[in-house]
């Protein structure tokens, strides 16, 4: 968008407030972010949505309406791949919600205990994996879980649990859970930090008042603190949702683009990658790739809208 277009409606209102000086700086300050954001986010998004309505017909790009979507949901193979990816994605998300976020809350609650020693050390140590590249995390965990060189079979042997070890990343039944838990390990620092900040912002008076009323310990956490951090938990849930349904990097690093074994770790992100860019002998199909991307966008949009309009408005907020 050009500068003139931005300032045009502004110029029309000028006669009304005749004496007011033109506030160019607002436009000037907004412009860089607007241009960058439009160029790298909005335009590609629109282009992707547009591309999903086109396909190559007789060697020429042509508008095909919703035909791509009909193939994706109607063709038995495309649909099987898509629903498999969506189901895996959902399991991936559920594991994060059930494991990552409760652990994050628990860690934050423990960190905020005033008597805890080395709190700063724990905080940093737990947050550190979040700062690591997913490539490093994927590689480290592949090595840790490796049945040949890994430390996990050895460690389990030390405590007599060797028989429970299995090559988790290579088995269709356990690979998705293993990858999800690696991701949980990496990102548990984010809910912890957000909840920790929310817990710290609870005023002393509220806690003191609760103590006067005889609410301490676990009761205090469930009845006083948890309701006060619910908005933060809501934000974390929606961040987890968006992050998980966009997930690609870790699975690609750990399991490869075919998301093996037997597509058991295939999520929408890896399906999109294989379709759009192609893989090995498969040539990329930009139209079907864009179609999958559009469906992903709609799923995330629906989830976020559900949260914004259905849940966030009902969360009670407390002002102090």
């Amino acid at each position, binding site marked *: 968008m050009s500068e003139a277009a931005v300032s045009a409606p502004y110029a029309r209102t000028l006669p009304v407030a005749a004496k007011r000086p033109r506030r160019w700086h607002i436009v000037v300050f907004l412009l860089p972010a607007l241009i960058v954001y439009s160029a790298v986010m909005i335009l590609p998004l629109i282009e992707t949505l547009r591309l999903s309505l086109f396909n190559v017909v007789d060697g020429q790009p042509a508008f095909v309406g919703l035909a791509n979507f009909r193939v994706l949901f109607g063709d*038995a*193979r*495309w649909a099987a791949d898509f629903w498999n990816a969506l189901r895996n994605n959902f399991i991936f998300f559920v594991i994060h919600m059930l494991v990552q976020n409760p652990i994050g809350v628990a860690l934050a609650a423990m960190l905020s205990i005033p008597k805890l020693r080395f709190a700063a050390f724990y905080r940093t140590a737990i947050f550190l994996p979040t700062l690591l590249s997913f490539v490093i995390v994927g590689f480290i965990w*592949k090595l840790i*879980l*490796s*049945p*040949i*060189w890994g430390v996990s*079979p050895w460690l389990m042997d030390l405590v007599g649990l060797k028989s429970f070890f*299995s*090559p*988790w*990343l*290579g*088995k*269709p039944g356990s690979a998705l859970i293993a990858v999800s838990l690696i991701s949980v390990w990496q990102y548990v620092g984010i809910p912890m930090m957000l909840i920790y900040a929310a817990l710290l912002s609870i005023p002393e008076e509220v806690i003191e008042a609760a103590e006067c009323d005889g609410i301490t310990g676990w009761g205090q956490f469930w009845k006083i603190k948890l309701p006060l951090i619910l908005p933060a938990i809501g934000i974390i849930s929606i961040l987890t949702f968006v992050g998980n349904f966009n997930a690609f990097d870790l699975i690609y690093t750990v399991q*490869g683009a*075919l998301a*093996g*074994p*037997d*597509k058991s770790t295939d999520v929408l992100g890896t399906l999109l990658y*294989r379709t759009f*860019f*192609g*893989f*090995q*002998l*498969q*040539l*990329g*199909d930009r139209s*079907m790739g864009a179609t999958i991307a559009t469906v992903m966008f709609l799923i995330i949009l629906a989830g976020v809208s559900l949260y914004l309009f259905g849940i966030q408005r009902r969360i009670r907020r407390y002002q102090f």
Partner: protein
Amino acid sequence: MTSRVLSGLLLASTILGSAALAQAQDKTLTIESWRNDDLSIWQEKLIPAFEAKHPGIKVVFSPTAPTEYNAALNAKLDAGSAGDLITCRPFDASLELYNKKHLINLTDLPGMENFSPVAKSAWSTDDGSASFCVPMASVIHGFIYNKDAFEKLGISVPTTEAEFFAALDKIKADGTYIPLAMGTKDLWEAATMGYQNIGPTYWKGEEGRIALVKGEQKLTDEPWVEPYRVLAKWKDYLGDGFEAQTYPDSQNLFTLGRAAIFPAGSWEISLFNQSKDIKLGAFAPPVKNAGDTCYISDHNDIGMGINAKSPNADAAKTFLTWVASPEFADIYANALPGFFSLNSTPVKMADPLAQEFVSWREKCKPTIRSTYQILSRGTPNLENETWTESANVINGTDTPEVAAKKLQDGLDSWYKPAK
């Protein structure tokens, strides 16, 4: 006076200098490639050898990372910024470039007569009428074994399927070595080193492959299911936790001397030669019964073509004629043992392991990987599905029959061979 001479000299040198530069620029050829491992070989051996003979032409080898090559090359070709010479992937990836008119027709290039039709098949149109890349190298499948392990256990090199499994049993019973160094985590090991390695013996190489392309045979037919049945038996001879064993894991297990047999492609030779501790030998895929014809996968892997937008097409053709010559074949095959020249003139190689591999060409019938030509053109992609199913068969997730049925169903969904 002196100052005038000086300025005259300076002027002359500027003009002459820029003239020399302009001349050099006119004839600089840039090679696009995914073989960044070969950078030093090109710079130190191949390019100097060419430039010595053709003083007017300079060559620059400019590789990209293998996984990014196809995407990067397509983008560059569309933008018109790609190099003059394009290293060609086999089959459809390059055929598409030719159909889009990014590569020129090289059928009449001097030197093309040095290659057999099979060698050219990877870079020809389906009817074989036009060729668009000069074949450079192929890779051969087989098994590399640890000679010390075989000697210690008193095993002779197996030639039949029964001998092969007897050898594996013996290694397993002894327990010192993992019989087979292979994992299923990366999927392609199971398909490429497993199925495509032993398969040609059962589907009779080209005969079966062409019948499959023509639709006369199906993947559910016995010759195509049987290799899966044999592959399923490998499971018991793989290392602990092979489901999570990656390709580098397998390579390491073997080079550290912990495994006896490595189902291999010839490209492993240079890497394995670096580990001086173990003595290496190789044997071709075992045949079913003693005396049967043996078949090997001799898969066309690298070729080179000319960018249609190249301003130096003549110089590029000169270069490719040289690439097609026995001289190039000799330097290339010896610098990269395991990448075998497709040139009809036999190349003398110094590496004993590479010699062993290439000697099978004389006694066995060569074929290319069954999934590469035509059959991986649609979605679902047969090659990629074969990766998944081969791993499934070894893992026991699918029975050989179920795997074959899945593959054939996938192929049927888009491939309608002309009858």
